[in-house]
């Protein structure tokens, strides 16, 4: 029984934290917001540290599947408002690595030669067979950093390649620089992690671009796995982001004086901070448990991820919002960083399943399955006398 991190895992966290602290400062983040370009420095840095392909779903790596490492890295990314699609790289590579024919692509992304992102939502993009082969048309949404990316993983329906729409789903690799793609900034309020919309016009789909075969449910399976990992990692980012907002704020209350005393000595302020701490630590526990559940193929892994995502989303928004409040007027200015955390939390909470949809997933298990299944013991526990 050990709920926590090994010394090696803690070492990794420390080195990633130091790295982002030096190379992804508030100045870097604000420079990125002015000029939305992923820096070559950051591409080299992440690849050089071997952080991108850290998840290994086959479990052939030395440290199991690397889920514990992945959440630690994602937490640090959230803590430092990292301006790189790290989550997409980790989830995308995890999926690509399960396909033997993708080794070339995997190493190009792992080595930092290509930036990978994922189109999380398919509005209506479809592959249609023509006399020259398959072509793609339609719209994809929720694509982080699409403009700085080289390749985009997308899940599209290949008409006729399955008996149901789900079976037709096919995971493909899009060339982000293709003339048949147009990329529009979707103007997300979180400028540290821009989201794009993509339109495909007769995009020629070559066979090599299909990740693991046309249809047959393979695309659905891979996308589901990526979304599960993505939801876990974005929850970890939310925890890191809100933890940083909390501690920056607590430091501020130890310096800021009003009425002649430090504002941190007021109980109203202390109790807000204690509530924030409770939410950060509870979200953290939920993320750590969910990572373990994924790592060990626990039958309740999906449930654990939905618990983590729904809790960390609400908590992240609440904590980062309270951080603005505790800073007072300065917290409401653009020059203070608190709004960056708040907006990052807002965007993170919205993507990869919002609170409502994850709670509905929880309800299906908690109410429809578990509560009614335990009917045998129900009588005994209806009225506990003590």
């Amino acid at each position: 029984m050990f709920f926590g991190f090994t010394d090696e895992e803690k070492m990794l966290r420390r080195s990633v934290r130091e790295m982002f602290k030096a190379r992804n400062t508030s100045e870097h983040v604000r420079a990125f917001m002015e000029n939305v370009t992923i820096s070559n420095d950051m591409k080299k840095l992440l690849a050089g540290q071997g952080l991108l392909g850290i998840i290994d779903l086959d479990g052939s790596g030395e440290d199991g599947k690397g889920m514990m490492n992945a959440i630690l890295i994602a937490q640090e990314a959230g803590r430092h408002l990292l301006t790189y699609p790290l989550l997409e790289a980790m989830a995308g590579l995890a999926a690509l690595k399960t396909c033997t024919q993708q080794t070339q692509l995997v190493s190009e992304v792992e080595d930092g030669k290509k930036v990978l992102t994922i189109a999380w939502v398919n509005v209506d993009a479809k592959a249609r067979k023509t006399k020259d082969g398959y072509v793609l048309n339609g719209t994809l949404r929720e694509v982080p950093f699409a403009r700085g990316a080289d390749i985009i993983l997308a899940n599209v329906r290949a008409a006729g390649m399955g008996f149901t729409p789900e079976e037709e789903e096919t995971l493909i690799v899009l060339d982000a620089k293709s003339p048949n793609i147009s990329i529009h900034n979707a103007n997300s309020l979180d400028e540290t992690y821009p989201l794009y919309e993509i339109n495909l016009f007769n995009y020629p789909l070559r066979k090599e671009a299909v990740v693991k075969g046309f249809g047959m449910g393979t695309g659905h399976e891979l996308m589901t796995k990526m979304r599960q990992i993505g939801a876990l990692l974005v929850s970890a980012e939310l925890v890191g982001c809100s933890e940083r907002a909390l501690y920056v704020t607590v430091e501020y209350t130890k310096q800021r004086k009003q009425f002649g005393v430090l504002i941190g000595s007021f109980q109203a302020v202390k109790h807000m901070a204690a509530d924030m701490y409770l939410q950060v630590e509870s979200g953290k526990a939920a993320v750590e448990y969910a990572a373990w559940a994924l790592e060990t193929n626990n039958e309740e892994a999906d449930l654990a991820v939905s618990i983590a995502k729904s809790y960390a989303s609400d908590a992240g928004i609440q904590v980062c919002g309270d951080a603005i409040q505790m800073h007072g007027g300065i917290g409401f200015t653009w020059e203070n960083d608190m709004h960056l955390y708040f907006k990052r939390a807002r965007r993170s909470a919205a993507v990869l399943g919002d609170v409502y949809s994850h709670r509905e997933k929880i309800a299906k298990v908690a109410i429809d399955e578990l509560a009614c299944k335990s009917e045998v013991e129900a009588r005994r526990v209806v009225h506990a006398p003590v």
Partner: protein
Amino acid sequence: MDLSFSPQQEEYRQHVREWLLDNIPEGWGTPEFNWPDDEAERGKILREWDRKLYQGGFAGISWPKQYGGQGLTHVEEIIFDEEAGKLNAPSGVNVLGKLLLGPTLLLFGTEEQKQRFLPPLLRGDEVWCQGFSEPNAGSDLAAIQTRAELQGDRWMINGQKVWTSFAHHADWCFVLARTDHEGPKHKGITFFLVPMDTEGITVRPLVQINGNKDFNEVFFDNVYIQAENVVGGVNNGWKVAMGTLGFERGTLALGRQVRFQNEFNNLARISSSLSKSGETVSESSYYRQKMAELFAEIRILRYHGLKTISQLLNEGKLGPEASLQKLFWSTMHVNMGKLGLEVLGEHAPYIGEESIARGALQDIDLGSRGAIIYAGTTQIQKNIIAERILGMPK
């Protein structure tokens, strides 16, 4: 991270489960189980359960064998708590002895005290109550006014304690009393062990808002006790008491979590039997969302509990993080109470045998109001978190 149990531990779980199924009193936990009206009779039944637990080998599971314990680890302890929780087994009448006094004596007691007090405590022969709070010393515990003076070779205690659970069933009480009036208030307190049958002790029952009769006021009027019945040294009682409260706040999360899960299941089942505005409650997205949120928090309590146990096993002690856990579960339980009565809607006031929830959801709503007060109020826990964990100024 390794949250699995070993095959031996799984075997132990099976053993616990079988024993509980064989030994839990007939009809326990069902609506047909009725307590005797007489409080002394209730005490007898509960003490009987403590004795049974001892005979079954489930008292002091992680305490050393030489004091009557089982010499196992905290893991077996939580396995027992979880299984007992699943079946809603009674918790006995000696909870304060087992949860608070025993661990305190193991940490601060003399060898003689351990040998004298621990075995009868575990056997269920000596039931304990806790004499800490006073009318003017609740959250500000160090403000206690009960005083002890050395008279020859005996201590004489005078004063009043309040909210003293199980005092009316107890054989002994562990009492904080002031032994120095000069220095800082934390430094003049001593931790005493007092037999409840001593002349000068009066116990007056207090009924709680949920109708339970666990509480009492205890009056000490020239109560003489032996000089050796001091734990941890004269004027060192604050340190001893803080250790005691650490146990109160830190352990038991996993057993509690399972009981909350049972309560949730009951709430969910009730919601599936009710409808509002033409819609079954358990199918209404409003209630599904709220129940899912609650369920997530119950699960997260389990994660907190696993973290705490891991800390106890690997580091041997609990820090101020125990406050986090207490704050978390007590707040969550209040929310469960609120949601339960919201689900009941127009049925919320009714608690009789014929009512929908038979009072079970109302019990949560009322009982949880106690949990945010006892063992350090919500506000005190928040102060502790802010000052000791976040380092905010006093």
